[in-house]
């Protein structure tokens, strides 16, 4: 096995281990909870019989390690338990919403990634010009704004004042792909604005970092044009950090989706999670939290692997 294969496999194993630890963390949280969960959820007025029945339903009468193994076995079989509020299987609730969330995140990513990398390249190319400073200030402001502020500003101007887009993003009411893209444009735009700022700043930093290396100075000294230096000499070597930046920001996008979905009452996983937290529907919280954590950890692992593969020293090393 080559060095790179060993490294990649090691990183994958670490990712799996992390996910496992996260699921343990959820359970440890439940164990350390002061007082009785069933009592807390049902309230002080519940009779002891109801509480006992509820405890049995939750499996709280079993010792913790049995419960954890039971739950883990269920997850492996694709059974995530039933919702406390509606009694429906959690997998049925999550399935369509996961598709909606992935659609929204993918929509935003498809526009945000090329835009951010292009802007970052331009900022690096025209470093310390008015364009660079303007882009930097814009990015800093965008990072400082809460997602819901950006979302409501867009609603106010593009939806209420200009009437271009609906205020609520109901994908299920849409009658085709074009309709769906139109209905979900505002939430996607919110995510794009939030993510592009991060990605652009990091892309710019990655390229400027490469521009500081001696071989770039050599290219300059032999009279290569500024544009050619960036596109032919710097970009191929900055690709690894840029791919890393993109993957990290896609992970960030997955989190940003929660607030945006609530603002636009978009039927996705984020909204499901927030509703479940408010009503303390723990099986749903556990399952959705684990899905989000799994996607986030996967993207982080991919980011690491991408930068390993893009590194020639590791690729061709013995």
């Amino acid at each position: 096995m080559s060095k790179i294969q060993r490294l990649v496999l090691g990183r994958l194993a670490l990712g799996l281990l992390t996910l496992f630890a996260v699921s343990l963390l959820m359970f440890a949280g439940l164990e350390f909870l002061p007082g009785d969960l069933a009592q807390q959820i049902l309230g002080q007025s519940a009779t002891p019989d109801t509480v006992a029945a509820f405890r049995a339903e939750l499996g709280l009468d079993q010792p913790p390690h049995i419960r954890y193994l039971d739950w883990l076995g269920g997850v492996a079989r694709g059974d995530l338990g039933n919702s406390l509020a509606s009694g429906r299987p959690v997998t049925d609730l999550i399935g369509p919403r996961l598709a909606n969330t992935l659609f929204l995140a993918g929509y935003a990513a498809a526009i945000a990634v090329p835009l951010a990398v292009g802007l970052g390249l331009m900022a690096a190319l025209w470093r310390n010009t008015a364009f660079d400073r303007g882009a930097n200030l814009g990015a800093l402001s965008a990072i400082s704004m809460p997602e819901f502020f950006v979302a409501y500003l867009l609603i106010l101007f593009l939806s209420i004042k200009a009437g271009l887009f609906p205020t609520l993003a109901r994908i299920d009411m849409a009658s085709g792909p074009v309709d769906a893209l139109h209905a979900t444009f505002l939430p996607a735009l919110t995510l794009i604005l939030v993510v592009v700022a991060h990605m652009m700043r990091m892309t710019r930093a990655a390229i400027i970092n490469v521009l500081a290396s001696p071989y770039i100075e050599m290219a300059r000294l032999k009279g290569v044009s500024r544009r050619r230096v960036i596109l032919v000499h710097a970009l191929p070597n900055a690709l690894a950090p840029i791919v890393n930046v993109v993957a990290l920001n896609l992970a960030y996008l997955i989190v940003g989706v929660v607030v945006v979905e609530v603002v636009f009452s978009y039927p996705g996983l984020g909204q499901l999670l927030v509703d479940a937290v408010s009503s303390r529907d723990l099986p749903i919280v556990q399952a959705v939290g684990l899905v989000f954590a799994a996607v986030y950890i996967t993207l982080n692992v991919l980011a690491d692997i991408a930068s390993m593969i893009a590194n020639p020293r590791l690729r061709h090393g013995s």
Partner: protein
Amino acid sequence: MKSLLRSAPPTALFGMVVLAAVAITAVFAPLLAPYGETEVVGSAYQQWTSAHPLGTDNLGRDMLSRMIFGARNTVGLALLTTVLAFVAGATLGMVAALKGGWVDQVLARAVDVLMAVPPLILALMLLAIVGASIPNMIAVISVIYLAPVFRLARAAAMNVVGLDFVEAARLRGEGLGWLVGREILPNIWSTLVAEFGVRFCFVFLFIAALSFLGIGIQPPTADWGSMVKENATLITFGDVTPLIPAAAIALLTIAVNLIVDWMLHRASGLET
């Protein structure tokens, strides 16, 4: 101090003015606010008038008064949470660096797990378990944000623990408390202070987002995040009032970021 202020770029000065204004508002909130924090003064959703400069909210409370009290609650809680995260994270980080061995390993691996999950998702999962309330929220967010502080403090302390004066203190027989407080902390203090500004912004935005989702600061406490949520319906009528608390959040975060940017720039030695 005067020359320091004169050397500050206009962006940093702007940040300091905003920060000072928010701080004064927060400290003197009861004197500045025309009405009480939760006092119902009229019908819901009134227009902007001279009696109610920003109108009234969804329950007929004075919007301006709630904005002023919100400065105290939102900023105060974010500050408290950040301080807690720093005290816990920095202490653990320094202890890990000093002790090494299994103490270091256990703490570092625990922090790895905390940082492997997106903070918002982790906070939502933990708050679902312990229930949404202000003390729970502060505890959960402090735990989540002690992770990055731990990493920074540990890395910074690692550079110091090997130095001779620490070795000398150890040979003198000083206890762990002395080593952490008298030997390590003074030498990593400036690193931690710069990080504090950055982390405060994260925590502040984080609390605002949680409150907006209805899982952070609970009603009837006035808070900028939940004020946006409570009055959001007004936006569909083209009224900008609900955006004012959101704009206040953005403005304060930008102000702190501008100051931190300037401090980092000064610390990097690019400008004398």
